[in-house]
């Protein structure tokens, strides 16, 4: 099976360590993931702000970069949701408006996009990935992974098998953290009010590390935790799962 990594624009630009962790983790599980260098962005920032025409070039690059692979894997519930639930909308409009007449048809032939935990649990059939992470951790299920994709408890099943990891339950876990893409700046006061409650719950668990499957949400929450000098770090789930006794994770961010 030829699996392509869609690293996402935010991880490519801001959090390359997450992409590197995915590569290490999947190789350990026997999947030699490839990185098609023609990829850019799934188009979600434009779509969710209402700029559908501006999303067309990004969706076109997605289709072209991943054509011919058997599957796409991405360390983001949000970007997987965008590929699965929004690309068709952009393709239809691009074809109707003549911006890219073949986009709709090409999308129909695109390989399936899996969020990382879906690929590991459903396709590879693994829950113990051989990870070691001796820290107290709490997990925030991001909205798009939870409600758009329905990843359910897959991330928690993976975390429970990590040696040394002490999982702390997050109160009101399923409530949105307040990031919401451009919502975070267009409605920054409301975004911060939501984030403040999430951060309060995170701190109440006593965890050292807040883990989630989307670095966009973690950028927002990590920014607040840092501003509060809380001492709580944020880490992408892939980085926790990639860590082993031989190659421990650096808890740096």
């Amino acid at each position, binding site marked *: 099976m030829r699996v392509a990594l869609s690293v996402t624009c935010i991880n*490519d630009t801001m959090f*390359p360590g997450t992409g590197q962790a995915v590569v*290490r983790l999947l190789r350990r599980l026997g999947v030699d993931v490839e990185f098609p260098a023609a990829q850019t962005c799934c188009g979600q920032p434009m779509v969710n702000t209402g700029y559908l025409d501006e999303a067309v070039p990004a969706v076109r690059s997605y289709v072209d970069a991943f054509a011919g692979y058997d599957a796409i894997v991405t360390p983001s519930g949000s970007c997987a949701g965008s590929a699965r639930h*929004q690309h068709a909308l952009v393709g239809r409009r691009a074809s109707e408006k003549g911006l890219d007449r073949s986009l709709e048809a090409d999308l129909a032939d695109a390989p399936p996009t899996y969020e990382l935990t879906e690929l590991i649990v459903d396709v590879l059939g693994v829950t113990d990935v051989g990870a070691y992470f001796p820290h107290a951790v709490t997990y925030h299920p991001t909205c798009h992974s939870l409600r758009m994709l329905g990843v359910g408890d897959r991330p928690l099943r993976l975390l429970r098998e990590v040696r040394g990891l002490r999982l702390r339950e997050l109160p009101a876990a399923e409530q949105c953290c*307040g990031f*919401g893409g451009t919502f975070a*700046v*267009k409605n920054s*006061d*409301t975004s911060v009010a939501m984030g403040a409650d999430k951060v309060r719950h995170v701190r109440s668990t006593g965890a050292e590390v807040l883990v989630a499957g989307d670095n966009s949400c973690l950028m927002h929450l990590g920014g607040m935790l840092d501003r509060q000098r809380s001492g709580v770090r944020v880490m992408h789930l892939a980085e926790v799962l990639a860590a082993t006794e031989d190659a421990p994770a650096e808890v740096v961010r």
Partner: protein
Amino acid sequence: MTGTFVGMPAFPSAAREALADTQLRHNLAHATGVIRGKRSRLVEEVDADVAGGGAGWEELRLAGAAVKQRALDALASHLEQLEASLTAAGATVHWARDAAEANAVVASVAKAHGADEVVKVKSMVTAEIGLNEALAEEGIAAWETDLAELIVQLGDDLPSHILVPAIHRNRAEIREIFLRKMAAVGRPAPADLTDEPAVLAAAAREHLREKFLRAKVGVSGANFAVADTGTLVVVESEGNGRMCLTLPEVLVSVVGIEKVVPTFAELDPLLRLLPRSSTGERMNPYTSTWSGVTPDDGPQEVHVVLLDNGRSRALADDTGRQALRCIRCSACLNVCPVYERTGGHAYGSVYPGPIGAILNPLLQGTGDEQTDSLPYASSLCGACFEACPVRIDIPEVLVHLRSKVVDSHRGDRVPKPEALAMKGAAWSFADASRLGLVERAAGFSGPFLKRLRRTPLPGAAAWADARDLPVPPKESFRAWWARTDGGRR
């Protein structure tokens, strides 16, 4: 008299003000939390009954959505049937294109009976059309008889929730309002009024009873309008609605055209979904149904005003028309993390929360700054869609309406900074080599930004007010992959 939402600022600034009100935040978090808990226990109960042969919650949602969708798909013929059934049952049917036409009908009916006051059943649609204000201009007083609407009306306030319009008030505030305002419009509150809920309710009962017994004209909306039998349905908790529906000689009901349900039997899933989703009850205490005039029982003159007021516009929108399935349960408000923090006033409409964020632009069209800000008043977390008993995909409609707002500005002579940023993003995402250039520039700026803790990117100030900015790494993922052959070198 109740105020109006006209002239409200756009959502972000209205929200900023609301977020600073700690009492409001406390009242809302408590109230929405209680209703959320009651609702979710009942959903679990319905699902648990599947083993006993019952339909699961999802099956019930699908059934409810299907009934409303059937009604909308052939709306014209169902409405014609409704008109015929109502007329045959002795009701007088009026058609109103907009608020002004509907208000004029109600006013003329009241005047024809020499009435200078009407008693009202709680209704969203009469708030939508500003009926109370329109009647006041004609010298007719409209008395709200729902307890929470009475609190809002006495307090010269605005509703902030569909079901619980005074959700932003606590009982101490309500006691103050009763003591100060009741005397001017009828029976005063007793001087020894406490803030015990039962004592407050008793004061309202005494105050309202005078009005029920005196009024000649009652005004209502309807939760459902059944086409085949000509039956209007009102569901409520207090019984005050039933007083208005049965005591006056004349009854006028204003009904949005989307309230039609094809057949009486199809009320079944809707009457199971609505109370569970709204108040978190298996069944609401009062369900009143009436079909035109019943001789010697209840109002002997019955009018029904079928109102469009933007509904045809919403129906013409392929993606947006699903919003007309809404049964005004307010489950989406109670689960919305934005609503929970800002409350309803920030939405500037009688329809607040996620449903208001789509319904207002769909009914009114885009082009007004306040209305255009509503589709953006959401983090797109999806909790509303999950809770909606008639499966309105609110996030989908929000994104669709955002694109309508953006499209309406495509001809602007001076584009907004946001539009320029999106054009720039489109350019860099069209080609990976362009994105690579942007990333290298970001990497170079990293050490500089680390010292400054700020970036020149648009929106950075709004971000950095309460959140540290991440510093771009020296090397992007794609640069790392190229340099190390994916970590193999």
